[in-house]
């Protein structure tokens, strides 16, 4: 790989702008609504994909057509009309006439509280921004450091073209196209997403965070992510953004696949803050995500998630512990307020011997929201000495919200040890008064109590992300106790 200079980057950014500019004529660049084989073909063509990829998408589409939308989750919503959605629209374009003054002041106030820089605010609202020298050099440094280690980190569309052998080998191996309704839909029409490959024995020297955060905006409705950690490698991957994202697309159906080969470790942290709808429960994003990781021998996958957004969340980041001695972890904070509904949890599938899994789930419900934990721990017949520990805690605020726990345990091996603990508590008036008496006002008191409740999970997040997540929890629950 030749040296990537700042000039190259500037050049690339210029080209990107051009690309975006090319698509500004929205009318002609958005596909007609509805979904059929021609649309799937057209998406693939638009992205200039090889034949095998087109075939893969078509196969997925065929499967999807035969499937029904799942109804077992503890959520209620008006089902999207899949024939009323446009499945391809050009990346969100920058409007040169738009300034921050045009952005919703509520949103700006929230950014301020989160301490998000003006440039990032612009980025997130598609306000044209100048290239800041600083961020250019940061991006360059990232690219250089990663390149030196042989780490591949690019969009999945690029990867399909540049590393077809890797994509072809792994795509859909953890989440098969026919896995579930939304996964099949995603496989047929995914717009873009990220691809990451860590070579054998390489420890990724940085959290793939800042870089990703800057590039996160506008990845679209059907995101596809594939992370491969080759033998003995390590990567910590952060997705999402603490800033609230308003999106015109109501339906989001992403797929994330993680592959940890022998002795590899993947840490995957998510902060999800999609628009949850207004205080009356109108609007808001439906977030139907399939996330799953595969662990080979001695490998480890940790999922950490902080979910505060979306009107409806359906999400179960899972681990298939195929290799002996592999380890799966799931740490989750899910906050629901107003009319939000979340049905989230995990699946730990123990196949190999001496496999271990840990589940820590913290659900916080406020307003009129419903918050469900749904988790499956499955111990296969060959999984000698498998261990699982699950802890599900729910915190209720007020009298109109709900917290539900649906744990499923299937053990087919007598040596399995499975522990499950669950608690439900309520923020008490006494706790609030105690804080008030020490000079801490009610809002701050709630933040303190909620952060204390979520501590075990917050501690799993990378440092700077944890600080932001803490602030996010405070803001999400503002005004929820009167």
């Amino acid at each position, binding site marked *: 790989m030749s040296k990537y200079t700042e000039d190259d980057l500037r050049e690339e950014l210029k080209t990107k702008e051009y690309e975006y500019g090319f698509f500004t004529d929205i009318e002609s660049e958005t596909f007609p609504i509805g979904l059929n084989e021609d649309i799937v073909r057209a998406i693939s063509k638009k992205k200039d994909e090889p034949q095998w990829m087109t075939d893969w998408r078509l196969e997925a589409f065929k499967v999807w057509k035969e499937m029904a939308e799942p109804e077992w989750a503890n959520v209620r919503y008006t089902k999207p009309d899949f024939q009323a959605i446009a499945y391809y629209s050009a990346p969100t374009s920058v409007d040169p006439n738009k300034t921050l003054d045009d952005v919703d002041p509520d949103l700006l106030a929230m950014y301020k509280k989160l301490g998000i820089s003006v440039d990032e605010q612009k980025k997130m609202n598609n306000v044209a921004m100048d290239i800041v020298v600083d961020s250019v050099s940061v991006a360059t440094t990232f690219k250089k450091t990663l390149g030196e280690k042989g780490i591949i980190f690019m969009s999945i569309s690029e990867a399909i073209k540049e590393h077809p052998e890797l994509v072809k080998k792994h795509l859909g191996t953890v989440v098969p196209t026919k896995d579930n309704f939304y996964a099949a839909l995603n496989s047929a029409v995914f717009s873009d997403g990220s691809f990451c490959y860590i070579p054998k024995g390489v420890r990724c020297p940085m959290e793939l965070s800042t870089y990703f955060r800057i590039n996160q905006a506008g990845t679209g409705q059907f995101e596809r992510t594939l992370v491969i950690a080759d033998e003995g490698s390590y990567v910590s991957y952060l997705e999402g953004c603490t800033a609230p994202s308003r999106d015109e697309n109501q339906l989001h159906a992403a797929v994330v696949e993680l592959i940890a080969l022998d002795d590899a470790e993947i840490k995957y942290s998510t902060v999800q803050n999609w628009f949850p709808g207004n205080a009356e429960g109108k609007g808001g994003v439906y977030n139907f995500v399939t996330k799953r990781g595969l662990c080979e021998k001695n490998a480890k996958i940790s999922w950490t998630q902080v979910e505060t957004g979306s009107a409806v969340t359906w999400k179960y980041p899972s681990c298939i512990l195929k290799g002996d001695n592999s380890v799966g972890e799931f740490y989750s904070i899910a906050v629901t307020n107003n009319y939000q509904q979340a049905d989230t949890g995990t699946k730990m599938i123990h196949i190999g011997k001496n496999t271990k899994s840990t589940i820590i789930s913290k659900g916080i419900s406020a307003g009129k929201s419903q918050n469900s934990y749904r988790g499956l721990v499955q111990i296969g017949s060959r999984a000698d000495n498998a261990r699982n520990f699950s802890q599900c805690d729910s915190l209720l605020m007020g009298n109109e919200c709900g917290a539900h726990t649906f744990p499923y345990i299937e053990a087919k091996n007598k040596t399995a040890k499975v522990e499950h603990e669950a608690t439900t508590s309520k923020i*008490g*008036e*006494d*706790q609030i*008064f*105690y*804080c*008030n*008496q*020490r*000079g*801490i*006002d*009610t809002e*701050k008191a709630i933040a*303190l*109590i909620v*952060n*204390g*409740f*979520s*501590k*075990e999970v917050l501690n799993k997040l990378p440092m700077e992300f944890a600080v932001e997540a803490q602030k996010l929890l405070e803001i999400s629950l503002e005004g929820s106790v009167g």
Partner: protein
Amino acid sequence: MLKINNLHASVEDKGILKGINLEVKAGEVHAIMGPNGSGKSTLASVIAGKEEYEVTDGNIIFEGEDIEELAAEERAHKGVFLSFQYPVEIPGVSVTNFIKTAINESRKAKGLGDMPAKDMLKLIREKADLLEMDRKFLSRSLNEGFSGGEKKRNEIFQMAMLEPKLAILDETDSGLDIDALRIVANGVNKLKSKDNAVVVITHYQRLLDYIVPDFVHVLYNGKIVKSGGKELAHELEEKGYDWIKEEVNA
């Protein structure tokens, strides 16, 4: 410092305080004694500003200001401190983190920035030593799994950190063994000065051997029915409350 005039207060329409008059000056220690259900803890909660209690008549003047309309945290910022009879648990929030938040919120109310971490640490060490607290204790979740003695010691630790003008100790002696009682009382005495005041609410004379009051008041059926010097506490210890009840009912 504190002047309570004809205070009536009720909870869920049930009258509990029925005309309390009390004046506490800087540098003084007052003890409030009385049988169960006489309204001692209610009085403490009303002064601290607990919302469930409604003041139906009279007023509370603190440092010349009627604090009736102030929220509990505003009263705290002005220097009112309540050592709780039953301190609540806050899981996941360490003793250190809690007191740090309390101090910085009070500073914020006074227009000051956060206390520098170095100063905070120094202060915490100093006050923890005063109350003979183990350092490990400071990293534990607030009141979670604390023994009765640890809870009360932690209350006085917070008092030491916040340096209030008026400290109300609500049954701080209950649940304490004799050693813990000595440590807690010793802490309170060291914090006492001519500029602050302490109101001790207790059933028993025991605590008053350590924290010696200037005045003792007997609360019965929502009213202060008798006041005197420290010898009144001894008299109560000897004779119980029945003679007071008889006097009142006569």
